[in-house]
């Protein structure tokens, strides 16, 4: 095995240095990666890292309820505390540490310029309860971000406050519900394709809609005929909306989206689009031109603000003319030179309030920085590169992995299934675990559910061809090993991680959710 510089990555098989390659050690530490215990296992109530004076004696007024036992909080010395948390942080895999091809999740690079801007005192040190007159710059930034997002999507209005994708879905569907209620419409069915993100039917159900599934065609996309059939089911006339993702979760562009929109509109329903995959089409397709009424934008995916443990999500929703009036408070209103946030619903048709304040200011700053530093040409190039990278992986792996919907170009992510591994004893899960040993975060697996043993790979535009080539080489090597009968290696993987394969079944059947002294 050779690394990218052509140097050997381990001794020759069978040589003396290559004995005892089990990966097990006496200490449980591996290399300089520590096997990190819980605080409770290394600390003690007797230890402390701070030296506080004794509390003054006071007469308690607890009427005999005062604690008469030691509280038993675990303490650590400062160096122990520092090491514990630094070591844990080193185990945290992030887009800053390596390739993260998680499909439908857009783990793109978070530019450092975004961070610099978000830390400017005028943005970083302000408080939501500070008088509006003291933060005109922040309001101006929100207006400019809104303006860009509306131009990129070709929509009429925006609600900035939702905190993440699913929250954005809820916001968009609440606007649709408010519009239906205002019109006195009894429609109560939402159409959702089989390949949808699980949050789509969950959102619809949460709002009291009935969910009706729409099957996909052989090529993995939703056809207008299937939508028409679903609309006519159970008498027809009851469809409030359709929720569609475009590109869909199979990484394919829904080519009949315009016809589907016309059909839904013609019958008096609304069109919600899940914007999770907007990164494939930014600067190239405007959702407003496709007939979409509401769509969330994941600033934390498409617009490079950190997510997945690295930062909060932010899911603004863009709305069509038909829904604009129902947007939640607070929203921005410009009066000549003055910008204000409208906080009350009085005198509006707003469906109400979703969040205490106006949303994730820090993410707005990062997203606008990303947009301005790229410009429209840069955004256009980014979505093009995201699609190119996914298709490069597709072309380089399609002879060893099956494409469930045939050999067709994908968008920003490529979907394979496990059928070409059948008979090897190696499953999608095993392949994913083996990838971890090779230093790659696995792709999304077993999603979308419509494909058996799905592997959904999204490289994003951030990755260099060298990284992508290395990923492809590793995937091809692993797949060859699977076909050579090295099933045991896959079932044992991962072996180089701080913990080996976890007992997912045991964790789900008998979850232990907190530490206690008896365990």
């Amino acid at each position: 095995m050779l690394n990218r510089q052509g140097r050997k990555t381990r001794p020759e098989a069978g040589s003396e240095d290559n004995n005892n390659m089990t990966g097990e050690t006496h200490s449980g530490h591996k290399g300089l990666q520590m096997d990190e215990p819980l605080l409770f296992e290394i600390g003690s109530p007797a230890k402390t890292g701070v030296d506080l004076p004794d509390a003054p004696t006071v007469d308690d007024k607890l009427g005999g309820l005062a604690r008469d036992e030691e509280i038993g909080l675990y303490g650590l010395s400062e160096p122990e505390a520092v090491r514990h948390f630094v070591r844990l942080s080193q185990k945290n895999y992030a887009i800053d540490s390596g390739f993260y091809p998680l499909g439908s999740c857009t783990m793109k690079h978070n530019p450092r310029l975004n961070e610099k801007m978000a830390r400017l005192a005028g943005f970083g040190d302000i408080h939501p309860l500070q008088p509006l007159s003291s933060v005109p710059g922040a309001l101006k930034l929100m207006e400019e971000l809104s303006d860009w997002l509306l131009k990129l999507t070709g929509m009429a209005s925006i609600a900035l406050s939702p905190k993440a994708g699913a929250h954005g879905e809820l916001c968009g569907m609440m606007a649709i519900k408010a519009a239906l209620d205002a019109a006195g419409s009894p429609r109560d069915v939402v159409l959702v394709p089989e390949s949808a993100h699980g949050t789509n039917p969950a959102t619809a159900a949460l709002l009291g809609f009935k969910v009706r599934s729409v099957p996909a065609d052989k090529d993995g996309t939703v056809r207008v005929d299937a939508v028409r059939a679903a609309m006519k089911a159970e008498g027809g006339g009851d469809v409030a909306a359709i929720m569609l993702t475009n590109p869909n979760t199979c990484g394919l562009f829904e080519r009949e989206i315009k016809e589907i929109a016309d059909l839904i509109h013609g019958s008096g329903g609304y069109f919600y689009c899940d914007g999770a995959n907007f990164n494939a089409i930014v600067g190239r397709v405007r959702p407003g031109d496709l007939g979409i009424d509401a769509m969330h934008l994941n600033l934390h995916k498409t617009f490079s603000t950190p997510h997945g443990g690295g930062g909060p999500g932010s899911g603004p929703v863009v709305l069509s003319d038909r829904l604009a009036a129902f947007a939640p408070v607070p929203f921005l209103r410009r009066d000549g030179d003055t910008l204000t946030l409208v906080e009350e619903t009085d005198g509006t048709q707003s469906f109400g309030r979703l969040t205490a304040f106006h949303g994730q200011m820090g993410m707005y700053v990062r997203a606008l920085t990303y947009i301005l530093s790229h410009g429209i040409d840069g955004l256009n190039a980014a979505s093009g590169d995201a699609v190119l990278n996914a298709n490069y992986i597709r072309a380089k792996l399609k002879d060893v992995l099956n494409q469930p919907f045939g050999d067709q170009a994908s968008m920003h992510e490529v979907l394979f299934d496990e059928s070409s591994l059948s008979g090897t004893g190696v499953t999608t899960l095993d392949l994913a675990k083996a990838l971890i040993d090779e230093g790659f975060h696995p792709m999304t697996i077993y999603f979308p559910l419509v494909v058996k043993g799905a592997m959904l790979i999204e490289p994003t535009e951030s990755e260099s061809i060298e990284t992508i080539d290395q990923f492809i080489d590793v995937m091809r090597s692993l797949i060859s090993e699977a076909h050579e009968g090295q099933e045991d290696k896959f079932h044992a993987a991962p072996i180089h991680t701080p913990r080996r394969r976890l007992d997912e079944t045991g964790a789900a059947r008998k979850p232990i959710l907190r530490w206690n002294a008896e365990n």
Partner: protein
Amino acid sequence: MSTTYYSRSHEYVKVADGIATIGITTYAQSQLGDIVFVELPETRRGFKRGDEAAVVESVKAASEVYAPLTGETTEANESLIDNPALANEDPEGDGWFFKMSLDNEGELKDLMDAETYQTFVKETS
């Protein structure tokens, strides 16, 4: 003597003395993997054929179990709640889900027998 029937959504139906015992097939549990949670219907609840009657959750996915017949539940397998692994270990025995009355015996002829089901599984997998 009981007779076993199979549905296209991978439930089995064992009929004995006018009562149908329903669970998921051996093939279904093998596709789901380790089952970690089962939600069963209340007893004396009426179902139309094709209604969602129970939920089964594995480490891979959550799926609905559909009532393969029209009828009313007479009993649910409480031991499955505490030990969902039964549905993996003995799906067509101790791992049954619920029992129901047979309101329309004619519906049985729309289900498959064991041999037809095996062929169906081979064709779809």
